[in-house]
């Protein structure tokens, strides 16, 4: 890669159930901002959008995250190319 090229890392982000409705979308591509390299940092970036994003993903909200369809933790690393899903606690069965 040439020095003057900027590397862009994108992730596919999915939202389910109550979150999908509250946020008004089920899926989006996000270019990872500088320094966003964990699930927790991505959640923080999404919260910075304000409004429903800040409310639904805020502290104390029960939100689960999966990276590439495996359950993840705030410290789970992301580097681009992942499928990251945000959803409420599950209620099947």
């Amino acid at each position, binding site marked *: 890669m040439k020095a003057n090229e900027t590397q862009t890392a994108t992730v596919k982000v999915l939202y*389910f159930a109550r979150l999908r409705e509250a946020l008004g979308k089920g899926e989006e591509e996000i270019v990872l901002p500088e320094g966003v390299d964990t699930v927790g940092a991505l959640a923080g970036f999404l919260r910075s959008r304000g409004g429903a994003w800040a409310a639904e993903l805020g502290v104390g909200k029960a939100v689960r995250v*999966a990276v590439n*369809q495996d359950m993840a933790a705030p410290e789970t690393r992301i580097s681009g190319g992942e499928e990251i*899903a945000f*959803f*409420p*606690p*599950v209620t*099947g*069965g």
Partner: protein
Amino acid sequence: MPVRVQHEDFDVGAEIAKLREGNPAIGAVASFVGIVRDLNEGDAVATLTLEHYPGMTEKSLEEIVAQARQRWDIYDALVVHRVGTLKPLDQIVLVVVTSAHRGESFEACEFLMDYLKTRAPFWKKEVTPEGARWVDARASDDAAADRWS
């Protein structure tokens, strides 16, 4: 295929017959069927809509079945879970386990349901006279699943 997520209803008898077909070593079959009730949290339920995460839901169900196979001496296990809009009296979920003796089937069946309810990505939304609402996860379901760890 021990795991299916589908819109269509299922026939419990046919599923059990298929699972034990041709295996004379099976001495026990335990099954569980979850059904839509007409009442939840004190409100009448008109419809129940189930959403899932295509890909991850199947994968997590397969992992739960694999865990049951490791923990108990069973022959086979089947999980069928419906998605889409259902109404009271409709079947939601089926778990079937076959084994030589009843103990393994009973336990593995209960384990599969407890883990499914707390780990597999499904979400329920119900319509009541008060309007539509997402069903909240229950602490009692987490407690039931924790028994196995």
